[in-house]
């Protein structure tokens, strides 16, 4: 083998090395090149959770889902409980803005109370996700059911049971939450939009029960006595609707009175459907909303366009459930999410 041969061998060896090395490099490339930037845009970020109360099933599911995911990606998660006190919540929000977390996930108590603060948070570069009820200002994301559409949906369901084509009294009662709360107000607005086009439907009672099952029970009991031929009742929240359903049951009108309500799909909703407390329920799946909130956080942090650059209304999918849809595991256990938040 001459000098030439050696050179050839060397060249082949180098080529082989190069091929080997590039094979190694190709194996390296099999790693997802987009994962690292995504993970690093999330890692170490701070999420602060401030709903109007952490004591109720919806807020527990939202927070539980977001916290689980946040911890999975090495983010810190903190939560505060203003316990239905709007003032305490506004103070908490002010303190949060000073602390400057990367994301604030909140739930408005009403349209106005937090609007100015949320705008300020956005202006200071904090991503703001609003849950369930939109304040008077739009931020990075609103996650919640389209309550007006849900009211329309409930009204249309009621039309099938008590409308012109049915042999009924066409009498319907509505049990509201609090008059000024968006969840109740918008649902009723949607219902009335439909019912106003159907003059045969007679709204015999439309009162606020203050989110209190006992008041809902008393109101419905009276409505049933005044109108023993009542055809249907719509209650804007299943937690309050348990009282409405109790009044219907105790008046012996289960079966005659069609009772529609709505809620986040906690186990109590399935229990109520199974025992006939509710005839039908519109389920807006609170853990699903938690997932939507988490998705919107990922979008905002990964795109890094700055807080409030992209504003999205993320309306929650809903599902109508009746007794037939209740199976093991159809609903979720709030205790499980409460534990995560503790």
């Amino acid at each position, binding site marked *: 083998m001459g000098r030439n041969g050696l050179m050839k061998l060397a060249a082949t060896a180098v080529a082989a090395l190069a091929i080997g090395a590039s094979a190694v490099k190709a194996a390296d490339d099999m790693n997802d090149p987009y994962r690292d930037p995504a993970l690093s845009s999330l890692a170490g970020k701070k999420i602060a959770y401030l709903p109007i109360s952490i*004591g109720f099933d919806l807020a527990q599911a939202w927070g539980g889902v977001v916290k689980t995911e946040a911890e999975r990606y090495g983010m810190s998660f903190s939560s505060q409980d203003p316990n239905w006190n709007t003032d305490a919540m506004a103070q908490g929000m002010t303190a949060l803005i000073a602390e400057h977390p990367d994301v604030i996930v909140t739930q408005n108590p009403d349209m106005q109370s937090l609007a100015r603060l949320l705008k300020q948070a956005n202006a200071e570069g904090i991503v703001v996700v609003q849950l369930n009820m939109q304040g008077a200002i739009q931020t990075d994301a609103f996650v919640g059911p389209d309550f007006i559409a849900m009211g329309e949906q409930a009204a249309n369901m009621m039309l099938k049971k008590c409308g012109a084509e049915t042999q009924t009294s066409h009498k319907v009662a509505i049990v509201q939450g609090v008059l000024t709360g968006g969840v109740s107000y918008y649902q009723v607005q949607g219902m009335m939009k439909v019912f106003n086009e159907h003059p045969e439907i007679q709204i015999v009672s439309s009162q606020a029960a203050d989110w209190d099952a*006992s008041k809902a029970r*008393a109101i419905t*009991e009276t409505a049933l006595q005044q109108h023993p031929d009542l055809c249907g009742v719509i209650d804007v929240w299943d937690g309050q609707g348990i009282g409405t359903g*109790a009044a219907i049951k105790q008046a012996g009108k289960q079966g005659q009175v069609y009772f529609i309500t709505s809620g986040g799909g906690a186990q109590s909703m399935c229990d109520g459907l199974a025992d006939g407390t509710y005839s039908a329920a519109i389920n807006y799946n609170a853990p699903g909303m938690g997932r939507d909130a988490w998705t919107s956080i990922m979008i905002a942090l990964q795109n890094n366009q700055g807080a409030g650059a992209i504003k999205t209304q993320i309306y929650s999918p809903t599902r109508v459930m009746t007794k037939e849809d209740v199976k093991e595991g159809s609903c979720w256990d709030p205790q499980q999410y409460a534990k995560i938040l503790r």
Partner: protein
Amino acid sequence: MRSLGFMRHLNQEKIVLLLTALLFVVFSLTLNNFLAGDNILSLMRSVAVLGILGLGMLVVVLGRGIDLSLVAVMAISVAWSMQLIHEGLPVSVALTIGLLFALGIALCTGILVAYAEIPPLFATLAMATFVYGFGRAHLIVGTDVVYMPKTMGWVVSLGQGKLLGVPMPIVVAAGMALVVFLFLRFTKIGSFIYAIGDNLAASRISGIAVRPMLVLQYVLSGGIAFVAGIITATSVEAMNTRIVNSNMIYDVILVVVLGGVGLSGGRGNVRNVIVGTLLIGVLMNGMTIMDVQYTVQNVIKSLILLLAIVVDSIVNPRDEQTGQQGDI
């Protein structure tokens, strides 16, 4: 002059009774079905819990106290009981624990008022906040609404059953009214409570064990709160601890004051509470039938209270003899 003589006999209780009768007649004439037997039962039923809590408040107010922790004790003790049943405790054990919790809290309140001499307004206000906070943080660990377990058994009939066609909440309220009436009217302790409310110093001088009596009043009201809670929970198959944040405690004070029980102590009896409760019942029922909004109902309710107080102060003007120290 005869009419003035008649006026002289009017006190707040009679004014409120007249007002109730007047409203009753007006509603009967103007509202369909108002007078129907079922509606009258529903009217009484809707204020039964309020009336029971009113009895608890009466016992305390007679001794010149006030108990702002009634609703908190009611909600947390019963919600905790039901939570314990969910966790697998037998119903009787869980209910006993809940009752003991209510009585224990009331005992602490009583000791704070009687021995530490903290004004009842502050002691019970603080206790209400403490009970709710402690309960939500350590006892009721899940959601703030505790649903009634399916295994409650006969207890459910307290909220949903009927006795001779009368809903059980009314029967229980009436029974408790009778017991409290007999207790205040015919027992020595009952008389002592009036004496203490009327003049604490004089009662002490005449040998009444004032401090233990004050403690007893709060313990009684705690026990009454627990019963009211059981009826609330079994009626609607859930106990929503959020009612602690509502204005329910003011409604309780309203029925007591409206009926003519003096907040300065020593004046009033079960009849006053019944009259006050009935007025609220008639008013709420009539307005619900008329489909008056809840917020407007609150306005009307408070206007009626103001009216009753104004009429009372016109026909029974306060002077040095009738005015008492210690009015809140």
